[in-house]
């Protein structure tokens, strides 16, 4: 076979194609690192479900992010459905562009101090469209917190570093949008909402 200039050109095209595909496959097939359970769910994380469960789902979320609000009923449904087989943890990832996101996270932590984290969590998501300092105060009253203690805790800013720890852990482990879910230590790539339940059901084996 005589190698004309054109043939060489075609061979070049083939090699270039293989290179591009090779690089593409290598980049996309790199396995996602599996994060350790004790790192994802620390003693400070708030959890729901069965603490002994083998499967664990961790959400990095922002109380003021609309997408997180849309996911909320779905997450509740999953947590309720698999309450014996799944441990769910919520971690703070307030985004800087949301004015009240960090304050909301602190409010939830302050309620958690009085054992009412999830009550406040539900209240915050239900009212995420009208956040203001008054709304936070109303929520605290509504769920029956000791208001003096609540306000004192908020004023001291003692939860700021806790929240910052969540953010820096998330940032270094691939959280770049909210909500981001980790199922059994692996970051989930969800194309649509229903994929979340599909993934959980698959992991649990149902």
């Amino acid at each position: 076979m005589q190698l004309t200039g054109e043939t060489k050109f075609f061979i070049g095209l083939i090699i270039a194609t293989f290179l591009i595909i090779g690089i593409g496959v290598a980049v996309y097939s790199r396995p996602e690192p599996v994060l350790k359970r004790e790192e994802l769910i620390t003693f400070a994380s708030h959890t729901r479900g069965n603490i002994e469960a083998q499967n664990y789902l961790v959400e990095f979320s922002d109380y003021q992010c609309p997408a997180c609000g849309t996911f909320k009923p779905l997450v509740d449904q999953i947590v309720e459905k698999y309450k014996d087989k799944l441990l769910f943890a919520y971690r703070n990832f307030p985004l800087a562009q949301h004015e009240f996101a960090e304050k909301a996270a602190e409010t939830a932590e302050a309620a958690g101090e009085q054992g009412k984290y999830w009550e406040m969590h539900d209240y915050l998501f239900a009212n995420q469209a009208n956040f203001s300092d008054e709304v936070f105060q109303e929520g605290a009253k509504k769920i029956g917190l000791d208001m003096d203690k609540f306000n004192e805790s908020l004023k001291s800013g003692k939860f700021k570093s806790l929240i910052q720890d969540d953010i820096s852990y998330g940032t270094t482990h691939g959280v770049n949008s909210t909500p981001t879910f980790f199922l059994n230590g692996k970051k989930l790539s969800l194309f649509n909402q229903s994929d979340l339940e599909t993934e959980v059901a698959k992991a649990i084996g149902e």
Partner: protein
Amino acid sequence: MGNEVETSRKLNRIIFILSIFGLILAIYVLQSFLRQSSIVCLNSGCETVRKSSFSYIFGIPVPAFGLVGYAMLAILTFLRTTSKDIRLLQWIRRIAIFGVIFVSWFTFTEIFVIKAVCTWCAVSTVNMFAIFYLSLKSYNIENYATHG
């Protein structure tokens, strides 16, 4: 004459590149069929189409036909760089004709039977029509050059 050789060479290059592109599409979609994994798609159509029994002909997934077709087109256009044999172009044209009939039939099936359209299949359909058009054009030029 020189001009026609140049045009013919350019057409051959384009057909080759389009064939490689079609080949990559077919490989990607076929691996999803074989591994039963979901296809990254612009709409939700890919999954519906993938799960339909109409996407298998005698048990062979439709993208496998695309894979063979595009592979043959790529090989033939490659061979044309080393040989001037008109039969190579005749075969390219035959495969392209079969290709457009096949993609038209499948697009029809998608729209009227499966009632979902998979983005990659649509891209492949356009791609095959482009190859068909270019092969006809190429064939006319060569015919003219040999007989005219």
